[in-house]
């Protein structure tokens, strides 16, 4: 089955297709995400999840929504690629996990959670992965400054005599 018919089945007119160079990106509503991904995997042959990432559209030109979560899919037999994008807004920063479809989604979702604070319902082990566990902000959000909020500078200084 072709992916176009799967997307029109699951989302109807809500799926917006956008082509740029050789990339095909389809924006779909968040609630139908898991159904679309599982049908794309099982019926349309997109057997590999290349990447999951997120974008904070805070000061992006003409952007209405705050976050976009991007799923890059690949069909290893035909070599076809497809990008699925979901738009999210605060406070509902939650999506269904894709770990039950692709085990490779595990760490990718953990990184998105770590960097953007987007939660994945049903993920087996949703913890921070790159940042320390006690870190409180989400560093790749656009409202987080490049130089940080003083996490590095406010470490307690231990002198040689105290150590």
């Amino acid at each position, binding site marked *: 089955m072709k992916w176009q018919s799967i997307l029109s089945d699951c989302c109807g007119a809500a799926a917006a297709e956008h082509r740029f160079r050789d*990339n095909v990106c389809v924006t779909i509503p968040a609630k139908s995400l898991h159904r679309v991904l599982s049908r794309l995997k099982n019926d349309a042959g997109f057997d590999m999840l*290349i990447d999951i990432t997120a974008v904070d559209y805070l000061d992006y030109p003409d952007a209405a929504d705050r976050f976009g979560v991007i799923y890059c899919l690949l069909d290893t037999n035909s070599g076809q690629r497809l990008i699925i994008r979901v738009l999210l807004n605060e406070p509902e920063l939650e999506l269904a996990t894709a770990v039950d479809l692709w*085990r490779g989604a595990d760490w990718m979702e953990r990184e998105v959670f770590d960097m953007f604070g987007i939660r994945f319902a049903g993920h087996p082990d949703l913890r921070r992965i790159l940042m320390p566990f006690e870190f409180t902000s989400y560093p790749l959000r656009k409202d987080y400054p490049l130089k940080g909020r003083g996490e590095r500078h406010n470490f307690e200084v231990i002198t040689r005599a105290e150590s």
Partner: protein
Amino acid sequence: MPFEVSELPAIDSESGVAEHEYLWKLNFGPQHPATHTTLRLILTLDGEKVIKAEPDIGYLHSGFEKLAEDLDFNQYVTIVDRMNYLSPLANEISWHHTVEKLLGIELTPRCRYVRTILAELMRLHDHLLNVGTTGLDLGAFTAFLYAFAQREKIYDIAESASGQRFHGSYTRVGGVLFDIDNAWVEKVRDFTKGFRRAHSDIDQLLSRNRIFIDRTRGVGVLTRDDAINYSCTGPVARASGVVRDLRKNEPYLAYADFDFKIICASEGDSYARYQVRMGEMMESLRIIEQAIENIPSGPINVAPEGKAVLPSKPDVFRSIEGLINHFELIMPNRGFDVPVESIYAATESPNGELGFYLVANGTNRAYRARTRPPSYIHFSVFPHMIAGHMLSDIVAVLGSLNIIAAELDR
């Protein structure tokens, strides 16, 4: 003799582990000679058998993706360099491949050939280190010396092209920093002549070495379905029977012009990954040999009238057009003509599919530049591959995955 995984006690990560009081925990890393870089594993062991391995990463996280949002397309190349430091130029080529695809720049034939040669040299560089140090970790010291002698020559070639041995920062949007000269071509020719011999030396030292085979065959098996399900690419996937190589499937640069094979294996164990890397080195050498004799003449950078590449210094100093072009690109309120779009593009780096998801907002800087790091994705498979093996197999599996912490943590 193939290693057989025996039946394991069913263990639940929540409740089960506490019941088995004979299990013990071992901390591996973050500083350990066999990790080569900084990564940590928390191992749950039954005697010497690994029941569960929990990776703990982030020790080398330095916010590369955040920095990408503050540096322009040419400046960020210095950061990309430092991701996978075993193949720095391959990362640069991948990054500028994405940027050029976004801007719609068509490279000159000469530049495509030069970049292809450099990318393949970097593949040799990466695989030599990987094969050498895997042998080193498993007790075969000599192969390591042969591999490193060849790597030194690749450093020299990189140095005479870019002026820097390691982190060349050689590519630019629409071209490269300096054109190559005849001395460089001669250097690459010399290297290709000597490499076959060194490759055969390494091959003879390891490929039929009883100890090396016993330590790697049947260890860390990844089936084809698992390789696809866990998003593996590159040599790791090809050793499991996934016949996929972006150089063939989505030809970029000049790869369509050359005759080479995709090296695959079906066993999916550490030895198969070693064999795939050894085979790929020979194919890379063939590509280099074909490319170095056929480098097209002509300019290496795209024409400066396209306002994408910096004009040469004599042009800047001696002509008003050159000065204007230079000014247009350098001043912070000018720069490239960038569409408000996002794009994903990938190349076949030595470690697997290295892709960038680049979101552009019409300025010189990336709004978001996500790296798809093959090391990160391959390391997430590690707990699955090591479960049921012995403690000493960890170095064999880690070595065969080629985890580079700078790329893992970015």
